[in-house]
């Protein structure tokens, strides 16, 4: 069987996944932005792993899926987690708490937002993780932004968690606010409400949610859990709940592909 991996890099988790499948006798090609041309030539593989949510990998995912080549995770679900607007409504639909957001041209936001609305978090509309994310404490700081259209979210003050899940295994870590997945984190026993939240999220997307992560903030006064960033395929850098997540992820993917192919045949 031939497998394609759509990934920014050939190393890290993508490299380990390639190695795992090659050891099992599969032919694996990693497509990065340097060697990815999206056309019929991609039909040479039996299925694809959408490791990166970068736009062109998502395009490849949509193209392959439309042409009945299985792609895991699902490109539409990955896209909805990449686009802040879409992910807001997706999480809301899953009955999870999300911070309110504000969108407009910078001039409009400066005119409409009052001092009591701050602090807010400025985020790129297309993005996940901490890249391009910063706290805006006043209108004055907004004036310094030259972006045409700005996306701002309510700043939720509280304890920040990075919660991974692979199948029904949950790994919870406390992380510094606004940090990425790769910083040092402290593993903690998963609180019951976080366990329930992950269960709800997994059930909501069902088989399109084999693994992933959620950045969650426990709000200081209410103790409510807010989802501030979902992710469909993290690097699992800080996964501390089993010796290696690679085997579990790869097996889940194979199982999903088998099911997708069966569905196609029936």
């Amino acid at each position, binding site marked *: 069987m031939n497998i394609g991996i759509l990934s920014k890099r050939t190393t890290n988790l993508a490299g380990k996944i390639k190695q795992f499948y090659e050891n099992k006798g599969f032919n694996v090609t990693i497509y990065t932005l340097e*060697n990815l*041309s999206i056309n019929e030539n991609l039909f040479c593989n039996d299925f694809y792993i959408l490791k990166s949510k970068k736009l062109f990998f998502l395009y490849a995912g949509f*193209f392959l899926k*439309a042409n009945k080549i299985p792609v895991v995770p699902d490109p539409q679900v990955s896209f909805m987690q990449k686009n802040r607007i879409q992910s807001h409504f997706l999480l809301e639909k899953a009955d999870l708490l999300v911070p309110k957001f504000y969108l*407009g041209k910078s001039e409009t936001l400066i005119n409409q937002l009052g001092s009591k609305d701050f602090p807010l978090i400025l985020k790129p509309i297309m993005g996940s993780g901490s890249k391009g994310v910063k706290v805006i404490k006043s209108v004055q700081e907004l004036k310094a932004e030259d972006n045409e*259209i700005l996306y701002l979210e309510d700043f939720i003050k509280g304890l920040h968690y990075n919660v991974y899940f692979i199948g029904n295994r949950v790994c919870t870590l406390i992380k510094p606010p606004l940090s990425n997945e790769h910083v040092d984190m402290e593993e903690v026993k998963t609180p019951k409400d976080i366990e329930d939240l992950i269960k709800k999220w997994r059930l909501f997307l069902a088989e399109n949610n084999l693994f992933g992560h959620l950045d969650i903030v426990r709000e200081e006064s209410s103790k409510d859990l807010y989802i501030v960033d979902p992710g469909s395929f993290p690097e699992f850098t800080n996964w501390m709940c089993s010796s290696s997540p690679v085997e579990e992820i790869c097996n889940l993917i194979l199982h999903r592909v088998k099911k997708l192919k069966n569905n196609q045949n029936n």
Partner: protein
Amino acid sequence: MKKVGIIIDKYHLNYKVTDFLKYLKSIAEVKLYVEESYFLKSSNQNFDEDLFFVKGKGEIILSLVKLIEEHTSIPVINSFKATCLAINRFLNSTYLRKAEIPVPDFSLNPKGEPPPFKDFIIKNIVDQGVYKFSPILMEENGNTRVADKRALDEVNGKEHQYNFLYYQKFIKSKWEYKIYGIGENVFFYKQLPVLINPNKTESRQKIDEISELKEYCLKAMEVMDIKITSLDFHKTQDGQFFLTDINCTPNFNYIKDGHKIVADYLLEQAKN
């Protein structure tokens, strides 16, 4: 009177909807949501319109449409799905072909990687801003190669956005067939291709219905959930049509009484 919300950008408001708004205001209550000054709050659910009409495709417009669709049951024409697909040439080519509507071969390639066909036109991937097609002809070894300046700027320009080019196989055609779909009604025109005559209205003429194009038009509208559209077709020498472009904010002023046809259609679709 029905209440109609118009979600629009300044360009369309200033140049494309004067007659339409004048007529619509005589038969409905109209509220404008102008992209350039709109403050979108995700918590806002206070819309009392019976229908929204979208005349624009910017990021704020798309987000407002998404919010209305998620928080209310008010019909929106064109929908979020329709607009997102229509503005993305690669995605609409993918889904139209899947629906067996003939589109020219296409490929999305990193800069420097040629497509798997010899005659091509390079178009930008996401057609979101207000822009007039600016073709650069690059005749090479007898092959027709055209690039839209905007597409090259998005890859090579000062503020380049990405490293990919969308190639569409070039279909040489004597005429460009311009088909408008408004609900179930389809209107037929043809004009000389812009590469032959940049003044596209000069040669435009109304033509009789072409049943094959009507079928493609209605199917494309169904696949993309698009209710008001214009489509461009090219015809090969052996008579095969190819859909080269689909638009979610068509200029309906080219159709006789287009503004009335659109306004009347919108009111028919409004909530009862």
